């Protein structure tokens, strides 16, 4: 491993830590603007019949009125030592709540990612094989279509067709194999669009490279050219794109879990938002940032090792890192 690589790695690691800390503070500030809290809202349930004076008394008894800065300090120091606090809504430790629902979301997100990658590869590689006359244009339009359909509509359709009409899965058992697969499809379709866009753009670019033209002139078939020359260089950047879609998967799980009735991070957020349960929201958003930053850190650190063409340009100012470069490529590819 070269010195330049180690310097680069150390720099990226430092950046990651700074970003996580800033994300925590940012979330805290946004979340503290929230007007209400779950404790008061439970007290205000009309069935309870508490008067305003009684509510004020109970709130005061719990000491819920410390200054923001003190709260931030307590919360941040807790976060750094691994203590995520106690949910105001349920009264249970936030770490327990998250641990309970995390497996379900991980299964959904990883299946969704697998669906997205397979779908994207099918579409992208298909564009290299399907001739123009036989619907290559249609295939190229797929990512655009995938990006245009709200995933809750996909979810509702899948539930109705496969859950109720065909009866492949039971809505009340959303963790079963088929239910998970269809939830993953609903989650994966919009994500696949982004991966497919990048893949198609890369394949097209590689196909225009000199070496590809040379290979073609030597009479190499379409399939062999694709398999031996285009596949690897065109697919490598996908590592970074996939890392960038982690946020998409987490965000999308919010909707997908609600539609499919799964109990995961997304539905936890949904419940916490509806009761404005600050500690839980704070923890989930920060963890989302941590996951995103770590996954991207790994992708950035792996990428130069996987693709020897990428040079580490340490030291030189204002040179975009690979993550910058690829993320711009992604958005551009998506836009193109």
């Amino acid at each position, binding site marked *: 491993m070269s010195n330049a690589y180690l310097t680069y790695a150390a720099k990226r690691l430092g*950046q990651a830590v*700074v*970003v*996580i800390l*800033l*994300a925590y503070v*940012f*979330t805290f500030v*946004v*979340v503290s*603007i*929230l*007007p209400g809290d779950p404790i008061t809202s439970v007290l205000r349930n009309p069935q309870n019949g508490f008067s305003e004076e009684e509510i004020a008394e109970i709130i005061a008894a719990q000491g819920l009125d410390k200054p923001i800065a003190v709260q931030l300090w307590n919360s941040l120091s807790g976060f750094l030592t691994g203590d995520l606090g106690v949910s105001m809504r349920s009264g249970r430790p936030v770490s327990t709540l998250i641990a309970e629902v995390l497996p379900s979301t991980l299964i959904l997100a990883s299946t969704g990612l697998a669906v997205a990658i397979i779908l994207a590869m099918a579409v992208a590689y298909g564009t290299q094989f399907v001739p123009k006359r036989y619907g290559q244009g249609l295939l190229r*339009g797929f990512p*655009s*279509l995938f*990006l*245009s*359909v*709200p*995933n*809750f*509509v996909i979810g*509702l359709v899948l539930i*109705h067709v496969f859950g109720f009409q065909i009866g492949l899965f039971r809505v009340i058992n959303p963790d079963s194999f088929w239910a998970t697969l269809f939830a993953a499809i609903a989650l994966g379709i919009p994500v696949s669009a982004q991966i497919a866009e990048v893949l198609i753009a890369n394949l097209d670019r590689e196909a225009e490279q000199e070496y590809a033209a040379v290979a073609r002139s030597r009479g190499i078939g379409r399939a062999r050219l694709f398999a031996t020359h285009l596949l690897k260089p065109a697919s490598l950047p996908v590592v970074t794109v996939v890392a960038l879609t*982690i*946020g*998409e998967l*987490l*965000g*999308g799980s*919010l*909707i997908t879990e*609600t539609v499919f009735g799964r109990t995961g991070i997304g539905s936890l*957020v*949904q419940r916490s*938002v*509806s009761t*404005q349960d600050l500690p839980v*929201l704070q923890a*989930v*958003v920060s963890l*989302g*940032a941590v996951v*995103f*930053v770590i996954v991207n850190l790994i992708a950035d650190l792996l990428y130069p090792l996987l693709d020897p063409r990428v040079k580490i340009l340490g030291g030189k*100012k*204002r040179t*975009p890192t690979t993550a*910058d470069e690829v*993320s*711009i490529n992604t*958005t*551009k590819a*998506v*836009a*193109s």
Partner: protein
Amino acid sequence: MSFVTTSVISGSRSRAWLSAFRVPPTVAISFLVVAIVIAWSLAPGLFTQYSPVVGIPADKLLGPNLNHWFGTDHLGRDVYARVVYGTASSVSSALVAVVIGVVAGGLVGLLAGFFGGWLDIVLARLVDVLLAIPKFLLAVIVVTAIGFETINAAIATGVSAVAIFARVTRAEVIKTRQATFVEAAFLSGGSRSFILWRHILPNASRSVLPLAVLQFGESILVIASLAFLGYGDPPPASDWGLLISIGKDYLKWPWLVYAPAFITILTVLSVNRISRWLRKTD
């Protein structure tokens, strides 16, 4: 009725326009769809005789028919009229989101890219923070903080798009700054603001435009998703996302979901197609 005549007129117009400019047919159709959507949002009354708010309770939950193209809802209101009248809010909220993203993100990217140095480092980290929080999660948190209304959902969506615009603008600015003609302008003594205004901004905006158009489509979807989760305007508002969200409670009458969903998908698809075309002709 009015719908058909208008579409015929604008159809023939755009065909002439298209042959002059060599626009692919799908792009022409996309422009047509967008034109209709804009017309709906500007003058909904021209496209339907029904009220989106007051219905005939006795005619509730009718299937699509000649009088009610998209059927009627649970209060006997014409769903087509509700879609048409809801367009203005759906379109304008998506516009608000894009404007926030482009202006705030563009400014950050411009400053970071143009001035570089410590300002770039600080802004880049802030953008990293925004980028690190899952976009939809960020939008949900922001909309919770500022209140459940469509305009707030639009603001939240805009905020969640700031990072991406900042990144693209910054990259474009850096690229342009290093281009020979800008170096030349610096050497020939052009002032910073002049160069920024005259050379860098136009160049950067060229690649931001297709992204902004794309973001417009995405904003429609994000705002609809927020509405689906219940973070939208109160009744009788009829934004597309709200219509889908209300319709999902009446799945026995599927047109209540599929009609607004179809319009949403068609619009976003058209916008995406236009964005792609803009990118190619650039």
